[in-house]
């Protein structure tokens, strides 16, 4: 019975999770606006990382072009809001649908033609870059001049139109992140989650066991794309301006996948931990180099830190940390 109460988590993990949620809920009351805005960045990274983790961490298909789904989600909900006044609560599901269709198409085309592994990864980059350039010529959404949302009145929280302060976005994103965590946990303990892991470990064996490998992989991509697009919708209403070269940037795709890999690919808490570590690292590098006028020093330190992490913990920080603090999963 206890397993039911704790959602199948061990008591120690459940306690640690409860503590984390409590701290995150209380945090905005104790810190200044700047820290809140940094935490919003952390939560975006955590949420995008969790979404990407489904297709790459669970199902084992390396996607290097997830900025595409951020962009589709952001542009769909923002354009529907700007042109038709459609509230984001309707626009974001539309964006999710667009991204899910795009993700399924890319996955179906690739897997139908047996494009896998490295080829699949490079194909996802190609699609993301191709769509980025197309959006640069798409006049209805502002092309390269950008798409702008009306400026928010920060004192007034308009929950219906998502116009409000960073603190409002903080709680929305916290909810998203915890939701994605719950969903990931649920999926991993369902049949589909086991199918995905089987495909990740050995695709041919999974096929031989009668798993519909093609459908499972496409489903993973569609779900991952839709979740990413939901975050993209929030990003649009948080940033208030969208440019194809930043929203769809290959740099964003790289950012999305760095956090989960650093944290621990395929694990539940890896993406969240990775997001905290990387954003903190970035902030630390910024303040460390703030007095020094050398171009590139910050990036150099950041790259060197990444290199150190890959050298010391190639499988990610979370698998190492959970061993250290005794939160090993039960077997």
């Amino acid at each position: 019975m206890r397993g039911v109460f704790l959602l199948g988590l061990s008591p120690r993990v459940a306690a640690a999770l409860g503590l984390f949620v409590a701290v995150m809920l209380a945090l905005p009351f104790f810190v200044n606006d700047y820290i809140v805005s940094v935490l919003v960045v952390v939560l975006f990274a955590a949420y995008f990382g969790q979404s990407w983790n489904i297709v790459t961490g669970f199902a084992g298909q390396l996607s290097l072009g997830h900025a595409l789904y951020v962009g589709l989600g952001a542009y769909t909900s923002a354009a529907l809001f700007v042109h038709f006044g459609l509230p984001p609560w309707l626009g974001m599901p539309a964006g999710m649908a667009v991204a899910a269709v795009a993700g399924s198409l890319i996955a179906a085309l690739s897997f139908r033609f047996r494009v896998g592994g490295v080829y699949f990864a490079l194909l996802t980059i190609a699609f993301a870059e191709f769509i980025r350039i197309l959006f640069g010529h798409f006049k209805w959404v502002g092309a390269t001049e950008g798409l702008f949302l009306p400026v928010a009145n920060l004192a007034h929280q308009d929950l219906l139109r998502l116009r409000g302060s960073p603190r409002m976005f903080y709680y929305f994103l916290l909810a998203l992140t915890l939701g994605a965590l719950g969903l990931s946990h649920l999926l991993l303990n369902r049949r589909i989650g086991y199918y995905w892991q089987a495909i990740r470990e050995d695709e041919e064996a999974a096929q031989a066991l009668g798993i519909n490998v093609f459908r499972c992989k496409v489903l993973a991509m569609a779900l991952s794309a839709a979740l990413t697009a939901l975050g993209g919708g929030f990003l649009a209403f948080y940033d208030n301006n969208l440019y194809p070269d930043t929203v769809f940037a290959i740099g964003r795709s790289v950012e999305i996948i760095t956090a989960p890999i650093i944290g621990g690919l395929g694990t539940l808490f890896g993406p969240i931990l990775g997001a905290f570590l990387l954003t903190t690292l970035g902030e630390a590098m910024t303040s460390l180099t703030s007095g020094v006028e050398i171009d590139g020093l910050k990036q150099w330190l950041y790259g060197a830190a990444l290199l150190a992490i890959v050298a010391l913990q190639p499988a990610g920080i979370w698998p190492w940390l959970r061993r250290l603090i005794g939160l090993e999963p039960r077997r």
Partner: protein
Amino acid sequence: MLYLNIIVAGLLTGLVYGLMALGLSVIFGVIRVVNFAHGEMMVVAMYATYLASTVTGLDPLLMLVPVTVLLFLLGYALQRLLINRYIARPDHEQFLLLLALATVITASLLMGFGPDARNVQLDYAYDSYQIGGLLLDKVRVIAAAGATLGAAALWAFFRFTRTGKAIRACADNQIGAQVVGLDVKRLYAITFGLGAACVGAAGALMLLLVDVEPYIATDYTLLAFIIVILGGLGSMPGALLGGVLVGVSEALSGFVIEPSFKSAFSFALLILVLLVRPQGLLGRA
């Protein structure tokens, strides 16, 4: 005739692209590692050429051989000391390793040279050859000739030398190569060195044609990916064919449609090829 001129100019540039991509293809074909820092290595070669020719006041073409050797050594050391430990690790770990490496390289160049574009001054920069109605830029012809020569030398190495044959044996069957007593680690390091040397030569030649700045590295990495996938990852003639195709398509779409569309055209070409012939035009299934 105007179109023919544009096509030929694209073809000549494409050969240099091809040499660069050849490096990526060789590395992947043998070691099975995708070099995500390929463009960064290209930019290192371009800066090395720039620095050497500005300091000495000599023609950058004379730097071709020293820069190629330098990049070979860098590649050799990189594989030996760092990448070799990751060749059996999952794709995403290799990706992160090379991404971190790429970040460090770009940041180092940024610290050393600043963000501004640099170029070399050539007194023959505007010379050209005329064949009938066809007008060929001298620098482009030199660069293309150099690239063709480099590719031919690499082909001859793999075809005729013992080391080249041993490397091909590793690529065909790594365990078999180990069983017959080949020093796979050393051969891998030589392979990575050769891949880097291709980039070194391509970078030195490319500097005759374009400016260099730290941030163009990503564009070159993407370009190299497109080219090798078009031609077929691991296929040497495929890399050159892919380079020429991308060079011509960039030149034509930049002229016919508009310059900002030129890479969209290459990506569309790539998507098309991947969907119709996933192993690339000249790749083996």
